[in-house]
């Protein structure tokens, strides 16, 4: 049985031209204060329900693109729209509203070591929606989605790397974000565990959440066969819809 058959079915991979993109970049460049030109003239549209990879070598500009998306950094020129909001000229006080549209995971999990698995996940809701009803049920349900329903009361250091990343995913997911951003989520994990995490992201996508995953794990990209946006020296050098990323004879499995 081919591995592709194990993948969950896709929603819409080829965007409907009438659809408004959930993320769009229009001529975006980013120069850091030290003069480094991290992104040059990026035009990009990601549609609702997309699953796309952001690939490129270290320093190519993937992380800058992620930082611009959540407005951790402002763009130097150009305009960025997220779910209908223009983020480039957004005042500081509206950033929380923007960030609540995202679920974000990183390579280093960023879990709070003093909190249990359930508390780590609940934390995201407590600080954005204090007094949230049915907090416990929501947390448990989300942990069930990531397959950690039996680890509620464990502490992060009692878990494996893959499990810790699942907790981070649950925390990013618990407020039901529109867009799921994963910045090198498998960077610290072995291939089997990485594959499990990718499967989980595909499942999340299948439930209707747009997923953007920055990675340089070529094997996973080849295997999953979804849209691939390749960045090199701050430019989008390739943007290909499913499978076309694999050229003849390049199959890695």
């Amino acid at each position, binding site marked *: 049985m081919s591995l592709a058959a194990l993948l969950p079915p896709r929603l819409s991979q080829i965007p409907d031209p009438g659809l408004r993109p959930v993320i769009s970049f229009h001529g975006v460049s980013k120069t850091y204060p030290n003069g480094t030109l991290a992104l040059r003239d990026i035009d990009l549209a990601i549609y609702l329900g997309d699953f796309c990879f952001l690939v490129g070598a270290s320093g190519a500009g993937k992380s800058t693109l992620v930082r611009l998306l959540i407005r*951790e950094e402002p763009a130097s020129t150009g305009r960025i729209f997220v779910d209908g909001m223009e983020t480039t000229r957004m005042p500081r*006080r509206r950033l*929380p509203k923007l*960030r609540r549209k995202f679920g*974000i995971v990183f390579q280093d999990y960023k879990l709070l070591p003093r909190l249990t698995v359930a508390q780590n996940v609940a934390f*995201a809701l*407590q*600080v954005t929606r204090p*007094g949230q009803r049915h907090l416990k049920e929501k947390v448990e349900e989300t942990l069930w989605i990531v397959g950690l329903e039996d680890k509620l009361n464990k502490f992060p250091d009692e878990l494996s790397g893959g499990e810790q990343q699942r907790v981070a995913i649950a925390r*990013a997911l618990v407020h039901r974000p529109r867009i799921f951003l994963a910045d090198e989520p498998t960077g610290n994990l072995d291939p089997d565990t990485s594959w499990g995490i990718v499967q989980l992201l595909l499942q999340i996508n299948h439930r209707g959440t747009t997923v953007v995953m920055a990675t340089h794990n070529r094997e996973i990209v080849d295997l999953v066969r979804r849209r691939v946006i390749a960045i090199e020296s701050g430019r989008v050098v390739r943007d290909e819809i499913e499978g076309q990323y694999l050229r003849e004879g390049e199959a890695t499995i």
Partner: protein
Amino acid sequence: MIRLFAAVRFTLVAAGQNFRRNLAVSMAGVFTMGLILLLVGGTLLLTHTIDGLVTQQETTSSSINIYLLGSISSRTITNYEVNFARDPRVISVGFTSEDQAVVIFKNDGLNTDNVLGVLQVNPLPPSIDLKVHKLSELSQFNSLARSLPIVDESAGKPTNYNADVIPRLEAIAAWIFGIGLVLSIVLAIISLVIIMNTIRTAVYIRRTEVEIMKLVGATDWFVRWPFILEGVFGGVLAAVFGSVIVVLGYRLLIGLADAKWLGVSYDATFLAALVAILVAVGAALGAFGSYLGVRRFLNV
């Protein structure tokens, strides 16, 4: 309402955790700030006490005796007395006759019999004695007295006005107030910096937490409140610490001063106000210092 309650509870718990986890730094900050507030309190108290002494001195000094010629009729004197009494600057008007002047002279403890015996006559002039509201108005009465025809100028000094003493007293009071003010401001700035650094350490310890809060979309104020509360808590604690020592020290010093030389009295009202001020200043410095301390970390 539920949201507000949950937010307040989260803030209180987080502030408490901050303080405990950061206990060594927090306590160091509290003690240093306590010492500073102690100095501020001490300075204010000292200023107040000296101010009280000056005021006391002023009240006793805010009087002037205008020496009269012995030949003036009592009717003329009464006329002048009535005129002086109408002046709004004057509190009271009195008259000392030559004989009364001798009695007062004797009461001052000097051996008058010899002096008066040698002189054969009473050299002390009668006088009109004015008590005025403001120390600064004495000089006006002094010049006024010089222009009056009833005044005895034979001794070259028609009044007992001492031009030197009064401005000097006023200058001392102003200096003490000024020094106290400058010292308090400098100390307040120092404690602001201390609180800022304490909170920076607290935020640094919790930087992952702050980072996550920002990333999941917590508002700036939600992130800020626990730290501000921690700062206020530390500031109030420091103020209490400083106040206890100020109050104890004040009692001790007043006890000593009372027994030995000065007539300063224990001012409970001022002391209560002072403690209230210290607590308010401690809380305000704590809040503002925290606000500044946490600001840099919020730019995520």
